[in-house]
């Protein structure tokens, strides 16, 4: 089976700075891979690279069979990215945002409603403007958008950040469900204990290069 993500000495620039200075990574379908590393190591850029958002200037990079160097736009409909920011329009309500982002990704109304329910956003909350929500609530809505997209590759940048205990449990369940359904999960986190229990494998990202220093089983992460 072809790997879902295949990077070989990939170099990605952010402005003039080489955020990824030769990353090598290989991820198989159904894996839940944890990206660890210090701040500024390039985890966020690695995730955005896999989403096809940034140009790869050197090396090889292929995600879901798409060559990112020549045609990275083609991979975007098949991935879902949950970044630091929540990409929701502040002036619109939760329902407005979901209708826009969900329909844009081709989800039906039913799927949108189901996604909101799954992440625990109650009916009453759906009519509230996003700017009035707390950070944790916004995160949940962004998560709902991701769920409604049904991507084949889930990319999450610190998914537990800003969520309460219940929210974190929801995230963990969603990740496990996703990979059980055949999707692949790539997520960056500083919360090694919780992340370690969800991940099937972990990789360390330092200095813009991902290197597989030790393949660890779930639960073995320090």
């Amino acid at each position: 089976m072809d790997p879902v993500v295949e990077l070989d000495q990939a170099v990605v620039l952010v402005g003039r700075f080489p955020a990824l200075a030769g990353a090598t990574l290989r991820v198989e379908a159904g894996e839940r891979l944890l990206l660890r590393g210090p701040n500024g190591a390039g985890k966020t850029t690695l995730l955005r690279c896999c989403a096809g958002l940034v140009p790869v200037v050197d090396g090889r990079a292929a995600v879901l069979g798409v060559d990112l160097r020549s045609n990275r736009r083609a991979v975007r409909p098949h991935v879902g990215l949950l970044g630091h920011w929540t990409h929701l329009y502040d002036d619109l309500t939760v329902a407005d945002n979901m209708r826009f982002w969900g329909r844009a990704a081709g989800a039906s109304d039913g799927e949108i409603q189901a996604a909101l329910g799954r992440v625990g956003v109650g009916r009453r909350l759906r009519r509230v403007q996003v700017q009035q929500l707390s950070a944790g609530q916004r995160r949940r809505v962004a998560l709902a958008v991701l769920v409604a997209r049904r991507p084949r590759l889930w990319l999450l940048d610190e998914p537990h950040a800003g969520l309460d205990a219940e929210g974190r449990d929801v995230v963990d369940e969603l990740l496990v469900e996703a990979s059980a359904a055949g999707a692949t999960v790539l997520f960056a986190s500083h919360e090694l204990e919780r992340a370690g229990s969800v991940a099937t494998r972990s990789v360390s990202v330092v200095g813009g290069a991902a290197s597989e220093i030790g393949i660890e089983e779930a639960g073995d992460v320090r």
Partner: protein
Amino acid sequence: MALTRPSLLPPRSTAAPTASVATRLLGGMSVVMIAVTVLLALAVTPADVVQGEAVRLMYAHLPTIWVAYGSFLVAAGASALYLWPRTRRRHWDRVAGATAEVGTVFTALCLVTGMLWGRITWGVYWQWDARLTTTLLLFVVYLGYLAVRRLPAEPVVRSRRSAITALIAVVNIVIVRYSVDWWNTLHQKASLTASDPEITGEMLGALLFAFVSFTVLASWLIVHRYRLIRMEELRDEEGLLRAIAERRAEAGLGVAG
């Protein structure tokens, strides 16, 4: 952008000047030809029947705008080549940048000589006729282009956005010229065109010579500007390779294989 693609020009360090045999030749030629033009303009050709000595400004005013239009056309063509995937090379982006910048300078020269000419013949620095208005708008449009070229963004983003701006600029100039001309015919404003000097004989010869000499001058400037852009890119690439090495050292990893 591959980091190791060889340059199309002879390799030069970023400390070397942008001169070469070709540019020295061009530079020498332009100095000589401009000098001859000045001579022709001031001494050899006759004064105009209507305008008197003021007509001599024409030898600077008209060639500058022709050269500017020519430069902008080249810039648009180069921009199109840069945008088209099959012919996309950084070379075209540099050509577009260099020619558009020189073209803008020549447009400014045209405006200044035009204003002087207007002051002497008509007593006013400015008239809202078709030609002057179009030229002024042309100048502002390309100031916008230069602003886009200096965007604080990644080089590829900048190049692409400038290329699109250059193409829209050309379309816009056509539209502006057309609509302002139309406006004028309806209003029948007195314009400089109505009192254009009759250009015959020696005047025509001198004007054509002036045109050629300004073109040579512009070419000389464009070559130098192109090379400057190339050197800026080389410097950035060197800096990038260094930054990559430093980043990898941070991780304790060796040089990328």
